[in-house]
């Protein structure tokens, strides 16, 4: 056998190491998004709990809202869910995107853990999430009353993340912990 073939493992390893090196410092939580300071991409998708209602990007107008991409198949979503319940109780307006999920499982998840969302957009095929540039669930976005995305966060949202990443973007005139939710249209 030629001696050079024994170098294959070395080469493969250094290719892997290069990939890992390139990924270092890759902030898995503040992924740069092409959509920062851009409007929410257009969509027309049904509501999870009421399939006759179709939501569009217009629902984000005139309110400060969080957009949370979740699925019942995503372990981290279970972890961050209690915190969203707290936020919702404090009056934070959260719009859910149920991502690549089965309807019955998603409903079960909400039955079990409670529903912090004012609306839940069903994105079964993941098209809307693709337009948003979602890497995986959970991901959370802060959207201002003009429908512009201000913050993108991949991974768990907890008290620390909320204080460090989301609160600074909220207008100083509003109470830091409570985002006033201007009359969310009731389904």
């Amino acid at each position, binding site marked *: *056998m030629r*001696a050079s073939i*024994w*170098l294959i*493992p*070395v080469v493969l*390893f*250094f290719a*892997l*190491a290069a*990939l*890992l*090196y*390139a*990924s*270092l*410092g*890759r*902030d*898995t*939580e503040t992924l740069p998004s092409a959509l920062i300071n851009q409007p929410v991409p257009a969509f027309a998708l049904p509501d999870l709990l009421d399939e006759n209602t179709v939501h569009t990007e217009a629902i984000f107008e005139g309110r400060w809202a969080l957009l949370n991409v979740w699925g019942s*198949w*995503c*372990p*981290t979503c*279970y*972890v961050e869910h*209690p915190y969203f*319940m707290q936020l919702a109780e404090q009056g934070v307006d959260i719009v859910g995107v149920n991502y*690549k999920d089965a309807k019955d499982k998603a409903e*079960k998840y909400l*039955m*079990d*853990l*409670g529903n912090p969302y004012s609306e839940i957009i069903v994105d079964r095929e*993941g098209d809307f999430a*693709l337009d948003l*540039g*979602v*890497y*995986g*669930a959970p991901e959370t976005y802060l959207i201002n009353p003009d429908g512009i995305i201000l913050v993108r966060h*991949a*991974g*768990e949202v907890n*008290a620390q993340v909320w204080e460090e990443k989301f609160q600074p973007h909220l207008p100083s005139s509003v109470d830091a912990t409570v985002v006033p939710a201007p009359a969310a249209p009731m389904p």
Partner: protein
Amino acid sequence: MIVEIGHFAVWLALGLALLQSFAPLLGTWKQQASWINLARPLAKMQFLLVSIAIVALGWAFYSNDFSVTYVANHSNSDLPWGYRLSAIWGGHEGSLLLWIWMLAAWGAAVALLSRSVPASMVAKVLAVMGMIAVGFLSFMLFTSNPFDRMLPWFPIDGADLNPLLQDPGLVVHPPMLYMGYVGFSVAFAFAVAGLISGRLDPAWARWARPWTTVAWAFLTVGIALGSWWAYYELGWGGWWFWDPVENASFMPWLSGSALLHSLAVTEKRNLFRAWTVLLAILTFSLSLLGTFLVRSGVLTSVHAFANDPARGTFILIFLAVVAGGSLLLFAMRAPLLQNKSGFKLLSRETFLLGNNLLLLTATFVVLMGTLFPLIGDAMDVRISISGPYFNAFFVPLTLLLMAILVPGVIANWKRHRWAALKAPLAWAAIGGVIVGFLASLWPEPTSFVGTLAMIMVMYVVIGHLYDWYKKATAFRQGLWRGSRRLQRSYYGMILAHCGLALVVAGITMVTHHEIERDVRMVPGDTVSVGGFDFTFEDVKPRKGPNYDAMRGTFLVEKNGRKVTYMYPEKRNYRVAQQVMTQVALRPGLIFDLYVALGEELDMPGAWAVRVYYKPGVRWLWLGALIMAIGGILAAMDKRYRKPMPKGQQEQTA
């Protein structure tokens, strides 16, 4: 003061590790017996010093010394003392100390127990382990020191241990897992020592084999404990999530399993030598990769430690030195490792080669699935990878592996006649189809894959029983006396393989026959799951040491007769302000009953309740335990303790 002693002990340990990593090696090169003989005492001292350090950190936790930053971040004066101690490994810095302690323990064990290995070989092995210790000790001391103090202003009380980690399962899970991870460093050290000395023969494989087997057994138990913990602590009844951190422990397990089998070929037949060395390097490198993935923050995971790219850089450089260096050494030496003897297509070697290829494919599948977010990043492709991807590969791979398992056990080394293999295989296959099909009908008929899996399980078990019977009676002294003449390593193998069959049976049962019911209940309601009636009696508040709980009471009845009471809880941990679901379990060999309290619903007194019936779920962990026991039994085989024949003592230098 005690903390400072511990801190000092770690610095001393680093000094000794530096000495250990080159003095014995120089000794073997210069033929200086006194330098060679330094290796064993140095390894023992190393263990003593790191033990002092870990005891000191334990004392800081026990005595609630919140001036130590690490203690302040991971403990609280209300935390029960048992969890205060397990909090030693509840965070990044302390778990690193545990890692180092395990490494030192393995080094001391090699120093104490390798009487049958030539001193020059032990010197090289311990030197390599010393280098690994240098890497990890400096990693800890320079980037993540658990002994750092917050002075002069330290908090009055600590931030508490993550409630998820306040659990008996978590007290033992990390030590077991690390014993396995770190144990592969011994196999790695043997491989590198073998490459340095150019000695990679059956004797070398015989020395390295028991260490690998024991490390593998620990890792098996560690992974099983993690799965068990996730099952009852995370509160949604799953037992494996293909989470990056789970994968990080599963990859070395898979390649370690391949290594075990390849070492067998090297020991018995002096074949696959280059391959074995490569697997030993790969397995330990995957352990290091796991450490990197968990601690560098390149991937998000439920288990991830505090993320810090500086730590990531350090581990990556270390990984590059360890894996890159050893692979280069391998590339230089491997051309000398050409096989001299061959084997026929129909032989045990072929089946073991198949085993290796399947296990490595599985490792690669997990590696790709885990790293995909990074690869996807680099190629700008966005696909989320989860359970279905892994299952699509793992179901066929496992079934194939089980299919070649039986002929692999039956076939002879070197060559086997097809005529002699036909009969036992036919028996196992026919028996497997009949018994497996019947078994798959319980509790109700299942899908094609479920039936096939049950058939494979029974085929493996029957094949092994058949082989055992044949081999025991081959002594012509009757089954009883014959069975006692078979070696321990043989029984270890039978146990481990049957353990695997039990794991697969458990997975099949729980996947195909579990019943999950999520219901809204008010006190007085009854729900029926798996033939049991669960009556929701009430919910009462309860005060724990560091949490407040709402505790539900459920009466479980079968056919109107009381079976048990179950008490699921919803806990709110006061300091961490985290809500946790404490599941109520009624474990059983055949099935588990599982009740979890969800959220209180809009109507007062109404709760979302999860009631699960999980048949066979215990078999998963029981099977893993049996595999581990099999491994330990095999490692205790007499032949590993036989002293070397005279004259072979110092033939290598």
